[in-house]
C-alpha cells in the first residue's frame, strides 16, 4: 500500500477520533496497536501522522475519564491510555533506538496536549523509565530525551512537585558542548527554572564564545561568566578541530544567544560586556583581524571571510543593543559595524545585517559622554555611517543599493524628529542620491527608493539648501504611469497612502487632482497588487473626506453607529477624483483580493450612505436600466460609460442596485470551494456509482 494511502487512512481515523465515542471503536478494532506499528513506517509522513493520532487518542482517553482518581502519583488509568502507555514505556529501553526515538516523540507531544490534572501522574509513571534511560551508557537519543524533559518542565503542574530539573542537568552535563546547545536554549527559554540549571545551560551556550575570547589578549567580562562557560584548552581544540565544525558551532551558539536578550527571564547577571567583546572578536576574526596568538591565527584561518558567521554575529550584536555596555566597548561595536558596512568584501547579505545592527546601536552611540571623559562616538558614528551609506548607494550591486535605501528609510522613520539627525542627513548627499535611485535600472531598488523618498518627504528631510528639485510627488506619479515593473508602482501607492494619512505630508494640500491621477493609473494597472493598493488609497481618501468610515476596530464598540450620517455632498470630493470609476470596476476584478477589497470598501460606504443619506430627489437619480448597463460594462470590462461621469446620486444608485452582501459571500469562498461542496461530493459519488453501473438510486 502506498504511503499516501496509509497517511490518508490515519487522517481518516483522526477525523473519526474527534468524537469521544470513537475511542472504544478504535480500541476494539486494534487501531492503537496498528498505529504503534506504523511508528516504524518507512514514510516520515505516516510516522508523524500516526504519532499525532496516538497523542490525540491518549489525550482524549484521559480527557474522557475526568480528573485522576486514586493516589496522585498512581491513579486509576483509563484502559486504553494504560495499554498505550505500557507499550510506550516498553519502547523506552536503551537498546531499542528507533522505537525509543518514536516513543520519546509521542510522549513529548503527549505532555503538551494531555489534560493538566493528568500531567503529574503521567510524569510519575514515566519517571522510572526515564531514570533508567539516563543511566544508560552511552546516553541514548539525547536530543529527543531533552525535548521530552523540556516538555515536562513546561507543564506547571509537574514542576511544582516533581520537576525534571535534575534530569535536565544530568543530560546537559553528559552532552558535548556541540550537542547541548539546543537543550540549553530550551532550558533558558523556560520562564521558571532553578538558578543553578539556568547557569549551567547558559554556560553551555557561552562556551564557544569563551573559547573565541580566550584567543584574544583582551577578554572583557570573563569574570561575569558562570563557571560552566569557561572551557579549557580541550574545548578550544574541539572548536578549532575543523573549519566546518568551528563555523557550525559558532553559528549555532550565536543564533541561540540572539534569542535570549528579549526574554524577561534572561540569565542574570547578564554578561553584556563579555558578549559584546566576544562578538566583536568573532567579527574581527571574520575580517582577518585577530590578536597575535597561535590559537587566534587558527581561529582567524577558520573564520576569515565566513559569511554565515558574520550574519549570525551581526544578528546577535543587533539583539544585544537593547542594553548598552561599557563605553569603550560601544566604541568598538561602532567601529566593527562601520568596518562591516564599509568593507568592500562584505557580501550584500552581510551588509544588510550590518546596517540593521547599526540601526539598533545608533541610539547608544548618542548617549552622553561617559564620566571617565570618553566620548561615545555619537557625533562620529552617524556622519561616518552616512558617508558610507552615500558610497553604498552608488554601488554597482543592486542588493547593496537596496539595503542602503532600506537603512535610510528605517533611520528616517526612527529619527526624523531629532535635530542632530536631520542636520547630518541634510548635510550629507544621501537624500538627493536616494532620489536619483528612482531611476535605477533595477526594479527592487526603484521600489525601495520610492519608499525611502516617501519617508524622507514625510519627515520633511528634503529641505536641503541646495536641493532645487522640489517635492518628488510629481515624479512619483509619472513613475506610476510609466514604470514597467510592478514593485515600484506598488511602492508608490503605498507611499501615497502613507502621505494621505499624514496630515502634514506632501498630499495635505490639494490632493484631489493628484489622487485622480493615481486612481486612474491604478485602475488600468495590469498588476493586481497595484490595484489592491490603489483601493487602500481610495479607502483612506474616503476616510479623510467622509470622516466617518473607519476600519472597524474590534476594540471600539459600534463605530459606525456613533458617527453622523454622510450626505451626498460628502461624496463630491471622491467623485471629483473619479474614485468610483476605479472602485466599481474593481468589484468585478478577476483577481479575487482586489474584488474583495473593493467589496469591503463599498459595503462600508453603503452602510453610511444608504441608512442615513437624504433620499435622492427625482430627476437626479439614474434610471435602473442605465445603472444595470453600467454594471454590465464594469462586469464584462467593456468600454462605455452609461452613467457618464459618476456623481454622488449615481454612486448611491449603483450601491443600491448592487447585492454586495451576496457578492461578499461569493468572494469569500475558497478557490476550491466547488470541489469541497456537497454538490461536488454527490457528483463524485454519482460518477463512482455510474462507473460500477448499479445502485445509482441509492446515492440519493
Amino acid at each position, binding site marked *: 500500500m502506498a504511503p499516501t494511502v496509509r497517511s490518508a487512512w490515519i487522517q481518516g481515523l483522526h477525523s473519526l477520533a474527534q468524537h469521544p465515542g470513537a475511542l472504544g471503536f478504535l480500541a476494539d478494532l486494534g487501531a492503537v496497536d496498528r498505529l504503534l506499528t506504523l511508528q516504524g513506517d518507512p514514510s516520515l509522513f505516516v510516522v508523524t501522522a500516526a504519532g499525532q493520532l496516538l497523542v490525540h487518542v491518549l489525550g482524549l482517553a484521559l480527557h474522557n475519564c475526568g480528573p485522576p482518581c486514586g493516589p496522585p502519583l498512581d491513579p486509576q488509568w483509563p484502559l486504553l491510555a494504560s495499554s498505550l502507555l505500557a507499550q510506550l514505556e516498553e519502547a523506552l529501553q536503551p537498546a531499542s533506538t528507533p522505537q525509543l526515538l518514536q516513543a520519546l516523540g509521542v510522549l513529548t507531544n503527549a505532555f503538551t496536549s494531555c489534560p493538566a490534572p493528568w500531567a503529574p501522574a503521567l510524569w510519575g509513571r514515566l519517571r522510572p523509565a526515564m531514570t533508567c534511560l539516563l543511566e544508560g551508557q552511552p546516553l541514548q537519543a539525547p536530543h529527543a530525551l531533552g525535548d521530552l524533559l523540556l516538555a515536562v518542565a513546561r507543564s506547571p503542574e509537574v514542576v511544582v512537585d516533581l520537576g525534571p530539573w535534575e534530569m535536565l542537568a544530568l543530560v546537559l552535563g553528559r552532552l558535548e558542548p556541540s550537542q547541548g546547545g539546543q537543550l540549553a536554549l530550551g532550558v533558558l527559554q523556560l520562564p521558571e527554572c532553578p538558578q543553578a540549571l539556568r547557569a549551567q545551560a547558559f554556560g553551555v551556550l557561552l562556551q564557544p564564545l569563551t573559547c573565541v575570547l580566550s584567543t584574544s589578549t583582551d577578554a572583557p567580562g570573563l569574570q561575569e561568566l558562570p563557571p560552566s562557560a569557561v572551557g579549557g584548552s580541550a574545548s578550544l581544540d574541539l572548536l578549532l578541530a575543523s573549519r566546518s565544525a568551528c563555523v557550525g558551532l559558532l553559528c549555532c551558539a550565536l543564533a541561540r544567544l540572539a534569542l535570549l536578550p528579549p526574554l524577561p527571564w534572561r540569565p542574570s547577571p547578564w554578561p553584556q560586556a563579555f558578549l559584546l567583546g566576544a562578538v566583536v572578536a568573532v567579527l574581527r576574526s571574520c575580517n*582577518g583581524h*585577530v*590578536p*597575535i*596568538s597561535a590559537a*587566534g*591565527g*587558527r581561529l*582567524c*584561518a577558520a573564520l*576569515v571571510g565566513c559569511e554565515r558567521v558574520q550574519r549570525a554575529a551581526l544578528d546577535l550584536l543587533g539583539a544585544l543593543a537593547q542594553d548598552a555596555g561599557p563605553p569603550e566597548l560601544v566604541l568598538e561595536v561602532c567601529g566593527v559595524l562601520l568596518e562591516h558596512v564599509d*568593507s*568592500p*568584501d*562584505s557580501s550584500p547579505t552581510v551588509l544588510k545585517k550590518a546596517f540593521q545592527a547599526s540601526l539598533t546601536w545608533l541610539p547608544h552611540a548618542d548617549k552622553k559622554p561617559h564620566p571617565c571623559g570618553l566620548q561615545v562616538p555619537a557625533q562620529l558614528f552617524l556622519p561616518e555611517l552616512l558617508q558610507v551609506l*552615500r*558610497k*553604498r548607494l*552608488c*554601488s*554597482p*550591486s543592486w542588493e*547593496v543599493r537596496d539595503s542602503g535605501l532600506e537603512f535610510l528609510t528605517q533611520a528616517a522613520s526612527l529619527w526624523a524628529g531629532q535635530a542632530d539627525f536631520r542636520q547630518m542627513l541634510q548635510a550629507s*548627499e544621501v537624500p538627493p*542620491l536616494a532620489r*536619483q535611485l528612482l*531611476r*535605477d*535600472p*533595477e526594479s527592487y531598488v526603484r521600489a525601495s527608493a520610492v519608499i525611502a523618498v516617501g519617508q524622507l518627504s514625510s519627515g520633511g528631510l528634503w529641505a536641503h539648501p541646495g536641493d532645487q528639485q522640489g517635492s518628488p510627488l510629481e515624479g512619483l506619479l509619472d513613475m506610476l504611469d510609466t514604470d514597467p515593473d510592478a514593485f515600484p508602482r506598488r511602492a508608490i501607492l503605498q507611499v501615497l497612502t502613507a502621505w494621505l494619512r499624514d496630515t502634514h505630508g506632501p498630499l495635505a494640500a490639494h490632493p484631489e487632482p493628484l489622487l485622480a491621477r493615481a486612481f486612474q493609473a491604478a485602475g488600468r494597472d495590469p498588476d493586481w497588487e497595484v490595484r489592491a493598493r490603489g483601493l487602500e488609497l481610495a479607502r483612506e481618501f474616503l476616510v479623510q473626506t467622509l470622516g466617518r468610515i473607519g476600519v472597524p476596530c474590534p476594540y471600539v464598540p459600534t463605530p459606525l453607529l456613533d458617527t453622523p450620517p454622510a450626505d451626498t455632498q460628502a461624496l463630491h470630493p471622491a467623485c471629483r477624483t473619479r474614485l468610483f470609476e476605479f472602485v466599481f470596476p474593481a468589484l468585478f476584478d478577476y483577481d479575487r483580493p482586489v474584488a474583495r477589497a473593493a467589496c469591503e470598501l463599498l459595503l462600508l460606504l453603503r452602510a453610511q450612505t444608504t441608512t442615513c443619506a437624504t433620499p435622492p430627489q427625482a430627476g437626479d437619480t439614474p434610471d435602473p436600466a442605465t445603472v444595470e448597463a453600467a454594471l454590465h460594462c464594469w462586469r464584462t470590462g467593456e468600454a462605455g460609460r452609461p452613467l457618464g461621469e459618476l456623481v454622488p446620486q449615481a454612486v448611491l444608485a449603483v450601491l443600491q442596485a448592487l447585492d454586495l452582501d451576496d457578492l461578499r459571500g461569493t468572494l469569500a469562498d475558497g478557490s476550491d470551494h466547488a470541489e469541497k461542496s456537497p454538490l461536488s461530493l454527490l457528483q463524485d459519488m454519482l460518477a463512482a456509482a455510474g462507473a460500477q453501473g448499479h445502485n445509482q438510486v441509492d446515492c440519493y
Partner: protein
Amino acid sequence: MLDCGLDMTSTLNFLPLPLVQSPRLSNLPGWSLKDGSAFLDKELKECSGHVFVDSVPEFCLPETELIDLSTVDVILISNYHCMMALPYITEHTGFTGTVYATEPTVQIGRLLMEELVNFIERVPKAQSASLWKNKDIQRLLPSPLKDAVEVSTWRRCYSMQEVNSALSKIQLVGYSQKIELFGAVQVTPLSSGYALGSSNWIIQSHYEKVSYVSGSSLLTTHPQPMDQASLKNSDVLLLTGLTQIPTANPDGMVGEFCSNLALTVRNGGNVLVPCYPSGVIYDLLECLYQYIDSAGLSNIPFYFISPVANSSLEFSQIFAEWLCHNKQSKVYLPEPPFPHAELIQTNKLKHYPSIHGDFSNDFKQPCVVFTGHPSLRFGDVVHFMELWGKSSLNTVIFTEPDFSYLEALAPYQPLAMKCIYCPIDTRLNFIQVSKLLKEVQPLHVVCPEQYTQPPPTQSHRMDLMVDCQPPAMSYRRAEVLALPFKRRYEKIEIMPELADSLVPMEIKPGISLATVSAVLHTKDNKHILQPPPRPVQPTSGKKRKQRATDDIPDCKVLKPLLSGSIPVEQFVQTLEKHGFSDIKVEDTAKGHIVLLQEAETLIQIEEDSTHIICDNDEMLRVRLRDLVLKFLQKF
C-alpha cells in the same frame, strides 16, 4: 628561462617626468648629507620629506650574474607583463635562442613596451645620476634609497629599435600547441585565464612532466578560462604569479571603484585612474558600461589617454579566439566582444594618444581619465596629478597592484585630492591555489619563499600561504634548487625493419622478450635503434670500404642473454645426480650459497647474478656452469 619580467618599482625612487614644465618639481631643494656635504644636491631632491633621484627613471633588470644568459636556448613567456625585460636580455647579453609566446602576448606586450618607451623618450632629460649609486654613498642615504638593491645594475629604458629587435626573436605559439625543444623536452602553452593570451606552460619529456603556473586566474573575466585539467599528473609544479593583494577581493574592489567614481563625479570632481593600457582596463570599462546609466553618469566623458590607446582597444576586439566563451560567441552574431566599442560609438569613451592635440580641444570636466603610468613617475598621469592634485573634489583611484600607492603619491604630497586604493588583481589567491593543487595533485610544488609563510605584516593569517601536501619546496632570490626528480628513462624508437626481424619469446605469460642487435643512433636527443649493418661484402672500391667501417661499429658475436631463476632445491638435487656430495646450502640476504665442501667450491646464487668460485679447476667450473645454465633460458 621562464619569463623575463621587469621590476619597475625602482622608478618610484625617481622624480616624476612632467609633460608640462612643473615649477614645483623643478624648484625642489637639493638634498645634502648630514655633515652638510652638498655634492649630491644635483642628483637628489627633497620633496615632502622624501628624497628622490632627479634623473631619467631606471629599471631593475632580471638577475644576470647567476647564469650566462648567452647560454639560454629558450625563453617561455607567460603573459605580456612578464616580458617587459626582454629587450635587455635579447639585445645585451649575447642571447641567441628563441622566445616563445602567444600572439596576444606579443602584440599587447609590444604596446606596453611602446607606451613605456614613448613615456620616457618624449620627456628627454639630460641629467643622468650615478653618484648616488656608489655603495659608500648609498648607505648614507635615507630610506628607501639606502635599501635599494642592485642599484648598479639599474638601467635606463630601452629604445623602440631594441624592442623591435627583441620581438623579432619571438616565435608565436597557440594554446595546446606542442613544441619540441631540441628533442629533449616538449613545451606546451595552456590558457591561464589571467589576460589575453596569458599562458601556463607544460614542460615534459616522455617520462617526466613539469608545470609552470604563472599569473593565472579562475575568475570569469575576459580571457579564455584557465586550463586546469592539463596540469594534472605533474611531477613538479612551479607556482608563481599569485595575487599581490590576497586580502582584496576583486569583485569588492570593482564595487568600490564604481562607487567612489560616481561619488566624485556627482560632486563635480574628476577621477584619475592610473593604469596600464591593457588588461584590467577592459573589465573596468565593461563594468562602467553597465553602471554609468544606473548611476546617472551618462553625460560624463571617459577619456583613455595612451600612445597605444587606440591599438589596445582595437586589438582587444580582434583576438576573439583568446577570449572567454561569452565573448567568443558575440563575434559570431556579429557583435564586438567588448562593450567599449559601443562606448566609443556613443562618444562616452574617447581615446587620445596624449594630452596634446585633440584632447585639449575636447576636454570637459568633470570627467574620468584612464591613463598611465601606474607608478605616477612618467606618462600623462603626471600632468593630471599636477593639475588635479590641489582640489579635494578630485579623486585618484589606484587599481593596479604593482606599486605601493603611498610611495607612488610621495612626490605629489601634500595632496588635496582624495586617494582611493582599489587594487584589482584577478590572479589566484591562496584559497584558489589550495583548491587547484588538490585538483591537479602534483607530486611536488615549488614556489617562492614568500608564498610559504604569512605576509610579515599579517603574521597571524595562516590562510595567506600555500597549503599543500607534501609541503611546497621554496626558493629565495638567487638560490639554486634541485628539482625533486631524476630523469631515469629515455624513449628509444625502433626502426620498422628492425622490429620485423625480432622474434620474441614468451618467458612468462604476457611477457615476451627478444634480443636485439642494432645500432643506437642518437641525434637531437632522439634515440633510434637501426638494423645492424649487413656483413661487409668484399669490394674492390677502397673508398666504399673505408666509409662502411667508419659509420658502423664492429659487431662482435654476442653471447646469449640469460633469464629465469634457479630453484635451489632442484639445483642441489641435480648436483647430487651429477655426483656431487656433501652439499650444504646457506641462505644469505640476497640469495643462497651452495657449498660443495668436498670440491671446495662455492656457488653464489643471487637474484641477478650467479658466481661459481672454485680453485683453478676450469673443468669443474665449466661443469657447474652448464648445470646452472640448464635452469636458465637463453636468447
